[in-house]
């Protein structure tokens, strides 16, 4: 195989995904450069990169959205390619164009594909035109004046979403049409601020659906393959927290049909690089939800079951190589489960938590992979997304994977900042999860899982803390046992 045309790759991202990309770059013998806001100074991604270039902004997030600064940094690092990761500018066509115009290869799809498939409305229309199933909806930009009226006609329950959004941000469920206008106003404001785009659309909300998505990969020669599905139905407020592959909900025939539909959609869009086609699945039917024109957080489960390094594939495709395998070469082996470690308190309505990481110890062992963006000593703030790390396991069967994930989550120790670790542990031993009967509304319907163990025994915790607290232990030590006993006689 000829040598890659790249020498240095700039990562326009942070945290665990930046670390994950650097690991592949090292394996491929490529140099890594990264941009970082000072809030991220000292994080693993910044220390691991061969070159780190500081960028600034009104807020830390704004720095990672600053196209001009990032391109200037790429030039400064002499980068010949750029990996956008996920989130931030990864699905911004203007950014992809600016990168290409600067003479730097964009490790992702063509800007036209981002525009077509990254925009929920255009993507939906495209998919519908090509004969694939979609849900009833109303699109604001079709006729802004009648949007609210048309939204009402979709009927409740409905979902209000920013057209440009992703990751559940700005999405609101409306069950009573009286609250529709408030929901529209809030979703618009959030869309405006997070994606710089206030356009909205509403769509019928399918109750108790399952979220099933398919990883696709295309090259510049028109080859498109799928790398099987991922089920991401364990969600809290539209945020995925546990993902797995294969999906326990699909029969072999349905699995084949969903995966082939995804590959056909990507083929129709002449899609190049890695992408994900998301479907809503309920009552034996599935319909197109959206396409993510980037690497996903949960790409790891696909890597575990296929043994294919998706970041490496993205780089090969961006370098103009033809895919080195065909559909029949891709085999799904065993079962993989990913759990996302978040700095949040499920017990208090998933509010974000902050603090300094005082102790950090990850589980290890065969078939356990940790993608982490944090270090012991690091301050966790609310400046960024609350995801700290991903714990991914791989086993021959689903039940073994669930047990391994459960053990791994119990072994994980993070002190200093509250996390959702014990919440994830609880989900992993839920009967509904173990039997594969989870839908996206499951956690909302079963709030006891988030609220924690009722009246759990705290004796061990209180005893440990008591003996570690000087003002408690010293007075006790000052009174010898015999005198303590006599003291109580005198009373």
């Amino acid at each position, binding site marked *: 195989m000829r040598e890659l045309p790249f020498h240095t790759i700039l990562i326009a991202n942070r945290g665990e995904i930046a670390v994950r990309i650097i690991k592949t770059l090292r394996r491929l013998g490529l140099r890594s450069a990264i941009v970082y806001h000072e809030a991220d100074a000292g994080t693993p991604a910044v220390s691991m990169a061969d070159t780190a270039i500081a960028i600034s902004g009104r807020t830390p997030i704004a720095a990672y959205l600053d196209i001009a600064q990032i391109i200037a940094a790429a030039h400064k690092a002499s980068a010949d390619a750029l990996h956008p990761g996920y989130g931030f500018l990864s699905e911004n066509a203007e950014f992809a164009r600016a990168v290409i115009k600067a003479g730097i290869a964009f490790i992702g799809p063509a800007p036209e594909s981002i525009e077509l498939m990254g925009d929920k409305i255009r993507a939906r229309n495209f998919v519908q035109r090509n004969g694939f199933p979609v849900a009833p909806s109303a699109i604001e930009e079709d006729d802004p004046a009648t949007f609210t009226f048309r939204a009402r006609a979709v009927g409740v329950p409905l979902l209000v979403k920013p057209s440009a959004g992703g990751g559940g941000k700005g999405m609101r469920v409306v069950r009573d049409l009286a609250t529709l206008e408030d929901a529209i106003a809030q979703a618009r404001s959030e869309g405006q601020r997070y994606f710089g785009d206030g356009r909205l659309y509403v769509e019928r909300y399918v109750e108790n659906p399952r979220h099933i998505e398919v990883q696709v990969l295309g090259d510049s020669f028109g080859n498109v393959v799928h790398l099987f599905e991922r089920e991401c139905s364990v969600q809290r407020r539209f945020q995925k927290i546990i993902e797995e592959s294969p999906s326990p909900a699909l029969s072999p025939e349905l699995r084949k049909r969903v995966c082939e539909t995804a590959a056909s959609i990507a083929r129709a869009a002449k899609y190049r690089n890695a992408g994900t086609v998301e479907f809503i699945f309920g009552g034996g039917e599935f319909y197109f939800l959206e396409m993510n024109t980037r690497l996903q957080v949960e790409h790891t489960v696909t890597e575990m079951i296929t043994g294919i390094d998706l970041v490496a594939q993205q780089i090969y495709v961006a370098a103009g190589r033809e895919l080195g395998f065909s559909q029949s070469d891709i085999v799904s082996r065993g079962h993989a489960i990913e759990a996302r470690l978040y700095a949040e308190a499920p017990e208090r309505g998933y509010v974000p938590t902050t603090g*300094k990481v005082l102790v950090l110890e990850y589980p290890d062992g065969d078939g356990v992979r940790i993608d982490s963006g944090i270090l012991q000593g690091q301050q966790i703030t609310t400046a960024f997304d609350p995801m700290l790390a991903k714990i991914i396991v791989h086993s021959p069967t689903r039940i073994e994977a669930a047990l391994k994930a459960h053990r791994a989550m119990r072994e994980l120790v993070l002190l200093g900042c509250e996390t959702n670790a014990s919440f994830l542990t609880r989900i992993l031993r839920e009967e509904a999860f173990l039997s594969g009967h989870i839908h996206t509304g499951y956690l909302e319907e079963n709030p006891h899982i988030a609220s924690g163990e009722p009246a759990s025994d705290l004796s*061990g915790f209180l005893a440990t803390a008591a003996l570690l607290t000087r003002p408690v232990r010293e007075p006790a030590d000052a009174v010898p046992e015999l005198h303590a006993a006599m003291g109580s006689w005198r009373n």
Partner: protein
Amino acid sequence: MKHSFEVDGVDYQFSLSRCQQGYRLRLSNKVIAPVVFSQQGDGRGVLTIAGESEPVRFAIDGEIIHVHIRGRTRILHYRDPLRTLACANNEAHHLLARAPMPGLVVTISVSPGQPVSAGTALMTIESMKLETIIRSPRDGVIDRIHFNEGESFERGAVLVTLSEEGR
């Protein structure tokens, strides 16, 4: 001597004394003895209660003790018995709208001196890309707004102080 730890907003009172093989911990509903805790350095230790041992990970941050035992983590806040008394009762006549989570002020919808009723939107805050409206807990007059738009705050911070009307 009575001590207490606050865990998840609940106070747990206890007392500690020596006993022959270690310590005796008296909780409101039971007595645990003998308790032995051997520190092994680097935030590790072994807790033995009545002969049964389990490994413990811990971290101490001032009066806050983080403890991890068998997959569960708890944060215990030591309540100094003297200081707890002094803090009581200094927030009379004022109503506070506190931050339910750490975040950033997006917009402020009221100004000082303005009368508001229960449920009036006071400000919009943002935390982890989700906007939340902070509403007045009851009727009153805006006394102080503690943060400007764009400023960030921690969980529990007082965002808006209201005074009761007529006081």
